[in-house]
């Protein structure tokens, strides 16, 4: 479904990614893990078109996304749930979801999708008219994921959905991601909670200072000595 070949990217003169190769197959859940500042967020930004790569290719569903403007990536079927959730604090929950359904195809099916998202996250239904800025962190994360789902993406990008949440809530969020998988979505998730995320995904990549240091199936990585020592404290 998604294939990155030799992607390099950065901010101005600063280069954050160096020749990344990465693949996500249809129906898969893939994790990108790594320390702070490794370039995980940058990688997701490249995939969702926020940053144009310096070099390399992004092929999505057999199409090269090179010439698309940032806002056109959603219509191609890539939804990006950004780091720190980034809800619109002064819009209501429902208005936030509405923004997730901005593209024409989603707009035409808005009512159905709203019902569907409320079924996935029943708590959101009670809070639909509340301002998003007044929700708790966990609730905000749900709305952020719901907002990304409103476009019924082929590929869902999640950037550290568990960051800043209490352990109980973290479990809950991982549970949600599992359910989204079961709904048949292809997911690329960035996480710092390496142990937990490896329980969830099929394969994973370890990113260090802008390069892929390791990759393999979740099982392989769980048993990798280097990863266990350096990142899981085992």
């Amino acid at each position, binding site marked *: 479904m998604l294939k990155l070949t030799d992607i390099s990217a950065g901010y101005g003169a600063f280069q954050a990614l160096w020749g990344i190769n990465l693949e996500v197959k249809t129906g898969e859940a893939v994790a990108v893990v790594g320390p702070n500042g490794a370039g995980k967020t940058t990688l997701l930004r490249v995939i969702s078109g926020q940053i144009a790569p310096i070099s390399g290719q992004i092929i999505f569903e057999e199409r090269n996304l090179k010439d698309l403007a940032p806002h056109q990536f959603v219509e191609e079927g890539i939804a990006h749930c950004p780091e720190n959730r980034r809800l619109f604090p002064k819009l209501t929950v429902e208005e936030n979801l509405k923004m997730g359904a901005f593209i024409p195809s989603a707009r035409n099916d808005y009512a159905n999708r709203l019902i569907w998202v409320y079924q996935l996250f029943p708590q959101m239904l009670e809070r639909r008219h509340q301002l998003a*800025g007044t929700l708790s962190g966990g609730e905000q994360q749900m709305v952020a994921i719901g907002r990304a789902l409103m476009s019924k993406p082929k590929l869902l990008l999640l950037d550290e959905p568990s960051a800043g949440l209490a352990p109980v809530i973290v479990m809950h969020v991982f549970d949600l991601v599992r359910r989204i998988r079961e709904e048949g979505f292809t997911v690329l998730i960035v996480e710092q909670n390496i142990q937990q995320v490896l329980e969830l995904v099929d394969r994973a990549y370890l990113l260090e200072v802008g390069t892929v240091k390791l990759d393999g199936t979740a099982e392989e990585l769980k048993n990798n000595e280097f990863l266990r020592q350096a990142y899981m404290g085992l």
Partner: protein
Amino acid sequence: MALFDFFLLEAIINGILFGGVLALLALGLNLVFGVVDVIWIAYAELVMSGMYIIYTLHITWGWPLLLAAPMAIVGVGLMGLVVHRLIIAPILDTPPINQLLATGGLLFFLQNFATLIFGADFRNIGLSLPILQIFELYISFSRLLSFGAAVLGMIGLYLFLSRTYIGTAIRAVAQDREIMSLMGVNTKKVYLITSALAGAMAGLAAILLVLQQDVHPFIGFSFGPITFMICVMGGLGNLIGGFFAAFIISQIISIGSFYGSTELSYVIAFVLFIIVMFIRPQGIFKRNT
């Protein structure tokens, strides 16, 4: 002397009516500031252009007023679009002060272009509406009409911003412009639409003003500065705050003119603005983020 000072009451009522127009004026400016993050220094001159559009269509070309007036909304709306596309968009990523100054150049251009075409004379659309008398109160019907239209305009804008996709997107951009492309929203397009909308608000304000005032090329100076003050006092980009600030300022001006002179009441309003800026730079009605 009556038990009750009718003249003062009249001043207060006029202040409220004037406040409606000011609130509408502030609304358009605030919209552009909140969404595009730019101050149109030439905003009042867009209103002036709208007044001349009505004048030209109605007086020179003989269109009926009910047809000529809406054209101001369309015409100035288009101007708003052009201003954004030609002047703001090319320099949107440069220091903010450049945008302020470029629209300052536009102010200068519009004033003098109007002088070139219409001369510096005062012109009016020759409409004389009756004065209403309620007990001993005399209220100008045109002011009442303006107030009503301003309120309708504001309700219309409110509905647009709260009910439509693009209206919601406009509010969303003001809160977090960076992630709009993740929603599949083209921010540039939102900016254009917002600018057109702000232009249309200026066009509506032009209708209200042309009902009660003569138009001349420099009329913008009489209400432009006060409009900026209102926006800032209400908290730039804060539509509700601007609305209330408009009524505060209009009361100061109206009651001040009643007791002293018009100039002094404006001086008080400006000084109040400066002081407010020192103690609450985010405006009286702070954005509740």
